[in-house]
C-alpha cells in the first residue's frame, strides 16, 4: 500500500504568451500511492488541469514550457520519455477524464469508432469482433444502457451525463493504474454528478486503481478522497489526510476557502476572500497568497514558503507554521 505510484517534484510550467511568459505552475509537488484516492482542490485557474496534462505528457508545447521539476511514474522519469514510451504509459499506466465531456469527444466520429480505436491501440487487438465485444463490455461497465445504440451514436446525440460516462469508458478502455478525473460531473446536475462520482469510486475499487480527483468543490473532495492537496495559484499550499484537513485546516487560504462554502447548517455566509487570484504574468513575490492574506508577514513577501510537516499526516506551506519550528 505504501509504494509511491506517482511522484511529482517541484514542477514548474510556464506558458509563452505575447510579450513574455505566464508563470502558471510554480513548484508543484505531489505523490500518489497505488490504489490511493487523492484529491486536488483549488479555484478556477489555479493550475490543476495544467498539472495533470503535464503528468500525462499531453501539455501542448508550445505554448507550454516545462521549466523544471521531475515526474516519476513507477520510478520511471516521465519527462524524459520518448513519444512511444509516453504512448505506452497512456495505454497501460495513466488515463485521464477531461473536464468538459463535450469538448473531449471528437464531434465527427461515432462513440463506437472512438472507443474501438482506444481499445484497438491500448490492447493491441486487431480482431474486429473481439474489439466490438470489449467496447460493449466497457460501456456496460460504466452503466450505460443500450450499448449497441450508443456505439452507433455521435456525441451530439447523447445527454451530458451519458457523454461523461462515455469519457470514462474511453479512459478505462484498457486496465490502468492511475485515473485522473478532472472535475467529473461538474457541468452536470448534483444528482447526476453524484452518480458519476459513485461510478468512478466503484471502478477504482474493482480495478484496484489509484485516482486523482480534481475539483473546485470542497464537498466533493471531502466525500470521495482519502488525502488531499490544496492548490493556490500554481502552488500546493497544504496537504493532509482528508478528514484531518476538514477538521483542522491550517493554511489561511484553506481556512478562508472552507469558510466561504455555504453550509447546510445555515450559519450564514462568510465575507469572501478579498482580491483576486494573481496575474500569472507578474505573480506576487514570495508566497503567492500574501497580497490576500490577513496574516501576511514581512517574510511572506520575500521568500517562498516550503511545505512543512506539522504532523505525519499534515503538511502546510506557510511561514505562520514553518517559523515556529525553525
Amino acid at each position, binding site marked *: 500500500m505504501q509504494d509511491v505510484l506517482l511522484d511529482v517534484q517541484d514542477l514548474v510550467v510556464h506558458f509563452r504568451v505575447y510579450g513574455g511568459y505566464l508563470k502558471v505552475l510554480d513548484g508543484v509537488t505531489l505523490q500518489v500511492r497505488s490504489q490511493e484516492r487523492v484529491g486536488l482542490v483549488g479555484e478556477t485557474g489555479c493550475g490543476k488541469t495544467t498539472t495533470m*496534462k503535464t503528468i*500525462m*505528457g*499531453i501539455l*501542448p508545447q508550445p505554448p507550454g514550457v516545462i521549466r523544471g521539476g521531475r515526474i516519476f511514474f513507477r520510478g520511471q522519469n516521465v519527462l524524459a520519455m520518448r*513519444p512511444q514510451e509516453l*504512448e*505506452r504509459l*497512456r*495505454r*497501460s499506466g495513466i*488515463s*485521464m477524464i*477531461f*473536464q*468538459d465531456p463535450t*469538448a*473531449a*469527444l*471528437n*464531434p*465527427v*466520429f461515432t462513440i463506437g469508432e*472512438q472507443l474501438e*480505436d*482506444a481499445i484497438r*491501440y*491500448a490492447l493491441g487487438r486487431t480482431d474486429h469482433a473481439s474489439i466490438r465485444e470489449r467496447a460493449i463490455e466497457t460501456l456496460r461497465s460504466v452503466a450505460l444502457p443500450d450499448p449497441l445504440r450508443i456505439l452507433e451514436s*455521435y456525441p*451530439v*446525440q447523447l445527454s451530458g451525463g451519458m457523454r461523461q460516462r462515455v*469519457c470514462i469508458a*474511453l*479512459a478505462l*478502455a*484498457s486496465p490502468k493504474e492511475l485515473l485522473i478525473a478532472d472535475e467529473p460531473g461538474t457541468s452536470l446536475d448534483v444528482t447526476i454528478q453524484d452518480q458519476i462520482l459513485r461510478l468512478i469510486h466503484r471502478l477504482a475499487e474493482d480495478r484496484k486503481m489509484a485516482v486523482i480527483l480534481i475539483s473546485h468543490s470542497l464537498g466533493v473532495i471531502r466525500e470521495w478522497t482519502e488525502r488531499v492537496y490544496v492548490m493556490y495559484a500554481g502552488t500546493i499550499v497544504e496537504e493532509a489526510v482528508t478528514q484531518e484537513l476538514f477538521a483542522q485546516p491550517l493554511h489561511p487560504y484553506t481556512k478562508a476557502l472552507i469558510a466561504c462554502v455555504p453550509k447546510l447548517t445555515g450559519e450564514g455566509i462568510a465575507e469572501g476572500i478579498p482580491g483576486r487570484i494573481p496575474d500569472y504574468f507578474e505573480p506576487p513575490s514570495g508566497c503567492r497568497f500574501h497580497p490576500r492574506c490577513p496574516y501576511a508577514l514581512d517574510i511572506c513577501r520575500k521568500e517562498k514558503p516550503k511545505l512543512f510537516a506539522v504532523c505525519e499526516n499534515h503538511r502546510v506551506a506557510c511561514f505562520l507554521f514553518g517559523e515556529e519550528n525553525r
Partner: protein
Amino acid sequence: MHFSRYIVRRLGYSIFVLIGLSIVVFIIARLVPGDPARAALGPRATQEAVEALRAKLHLDKPIYVQYFFWLRSVFQGDFGESLYTRRPVVEDIKEFLPATLELALFAGLFMAVFGLLLGIVSARYANTWVDNCIRVLAYIGIATPAFVVAIILILLFGMYYEVFPTIGRLSPGIAAPPRFTGLMTLDSLLSGNWRAFFDALKHLFLPALSLSLGGLFQEARITRASMLENAKRDFVSAARAYGIPERVVVSKYLFKPSIIPTVSILGLDFASLIGNAFLVELLFNWPGLSRYGINVMLRKDIEAIVAVVMVLGVVFTVVNILVDLVVAYLDPRIRLVERGE
C-alpha cells in the same frame, strides 16, 4: 432518416431561391431603356409591326403577367431567341455549356485537391520556412486576378515554351470525338480516342490552372488555420490521453474535423471560379457558355443574357447543394441536430 429530411429541406429552399433569382433577373432585363420589340425589328419597321411583336411577346401587358408568360416558356424549354446567333438560346446553351462545365470541373478539382494538400503541408510544418513560403505564395496567389494569371501563363507557357496550347479545346489536326456529353475529355475516353483525350487535357491545363489558383490558395489558408485551431482542442489531447498513436491522432482525429471548413468554403470559391470563367474563357478562346455570355452582354442580347445568368445560377446552386451535402455528411452536428428553438 434525419439526413433525408435535411436534403429535402435544402432542395426545397434552393428551388425557392432560384425562382427568386429569376424574378430579379427578369426585372433587371426589363430595366433596359428602349423598346425590345423596336430593337428587334430595327428602326425602319412599321409601327403596326412593332405593335404586333409587342403583343406577341406580351410586352403590352403588366410586368407580372410578362413574367408569368416568360416563366411558362422557360419551363417548356424556351428561352427565346438570341439576337447574336439568330437561333434559339436553348440551342446555344446546349452547345456552349459543356465546355464551361468541363473547365469548371477540372479547375474545381485542382482547387480542392491541391488547396487541401498545401494546407496540410503548411500546418504540418507550421512556422517553418516551408510554411512561410506557402503563406507568402498564398497571399500573392489570392491577390492575383484570374485574368492576370491567365495572361502570365499564356506568356510563359503558351508562347515562349509552347508546352501547353493556349487556344481552344483541341488542336486543329485532331478530329473531335463524337459528342455524347459535350465534355471533350469524357467523350474522347468513351470513344477510345486516346490522342484526343490527352490533347484535350493539355488544352484544359492552362485555363483550369488560371481559374483555380486564387481559390486554391484560399483553401490552403483555411485548411491550415483550421488544423492549427483544432490541434489545440481537448478532443485531440483526449485522443492522445487514451493511448491512440500520434499518427492516428493526426491523420484521423485531427484531420476529419479540420477539413469541414475547407469543404464549406468550396462553394464560395466555386462562385468566383465561375465568375472568372467569363474573362478566362475570353483569353483562351474557350468556346464555353461564359465566352458566349460576354458576347451577348456586349450586344445587349437580353433573352440570352437572362438565360446565361439563370443557367449559371442553377449550376452554382447545384454545386452549393453538393457542398452542403458533403459537409453534412462529414459533420453529424449539422445533419443530426435540428435548428430552431
